[in-house]
């Protein structure tokens, strides 16, 4: 039996719960996560002991040293390099699954930070598009088509994030 496993897995920022749950199931089956790379979609596992682990994907605001300090002191381990913008944290537990976010507002803000980044991306793409259209190169049509396609992609992400926020708000009687 092989002791290593590499899995490519795409995930979306509005539904990190899905990939977190998957990692936790892998850990329970004894596949311990050892590395995450390639823009955080390639997951490398090693066969070991079954572990009860909590995984949390964070998209924080400006990251400074004290970001890592707070997590480390609270017993979280960082899976990846310290580049961001996404950070994968893990912590082993026994009874109640710990989470890095403990209220709805924090989850909504995590989505809002992503929305701001994507909107910035839309503006950058529009700027590039105007350059390409003004420049009139040989491949203008192809490049502008690709840029327009990426704007559509960004739009899709924004819609999904906003819908997720709406759901979070509806479920919250408490603030």
């Amino acid at each position, binding site marked *: 039996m092989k002791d290593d496993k590499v899995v490519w897995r795409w995930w979306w920022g509005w539904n990190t719960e899905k990939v977190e749950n998957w990692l936790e199931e892998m850990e329970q089956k004894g596949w311990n996560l050892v590395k995450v790379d390639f823009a955080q979609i390639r997951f490398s596992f090693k066969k070991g002991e079954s572990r009860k682990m909590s995984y949390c994907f964070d998209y924080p605001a400006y990251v400074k040293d004290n970001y*890592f*300090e*707070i997590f480390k002191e*609270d017993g979280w381990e960082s899976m990846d390099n310290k580049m961001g913008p996404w950070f994968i944290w893990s912590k082993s537990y026994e009874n109640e699954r710990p*989470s*890095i*976010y*403990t209220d709805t507002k*924090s989850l909504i803000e*995590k989505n809002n930070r992503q929305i701001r980044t994507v909107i910035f991306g839309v503006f950058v793409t529009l700027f590039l598009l105007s350059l390409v259209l003004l420049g009139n190169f040989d491949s203008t049509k192809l490049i502008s088509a690709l840029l327009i396609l990426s704007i559509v992609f960004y739009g899709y992400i924004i819609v999904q994030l906003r819908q997720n926020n709406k759901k979070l708000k509806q479920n919250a009687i408490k603030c």
Partner: protein
Amino acid sequence: MDTEKLQKKYLPLTEAAYYVLISLNKPRHGYRIMLYVKEITNGRINIGAGTMYGNLSRMEKEGLINTVAEEDRKKIYEISEKGKIILKLELARLEELLSHGKSEMGDLK
């Protein structure tokens, strides 16, 4: 900024924000605040690391708290004058809630 604007912008505080602010009446760093809140609420409120970092960075940006020192890559914060004004408004709001609840539901056992 006048009172009404502050109320509109910040109130009601989340439980986490409320406890972070009152904990910073004394200088503390992020993890200390988490422990302190857990202790005074007998474990009822556990503020997660992400929620804590989010609250601290936003409150510092908005001037509700200040960094008073940095030790071993930890930032030590304290409540600012603006933070105190907001906390005062929130305490008045909570007192109103409590007195209404008690006068309407005084017979609730």
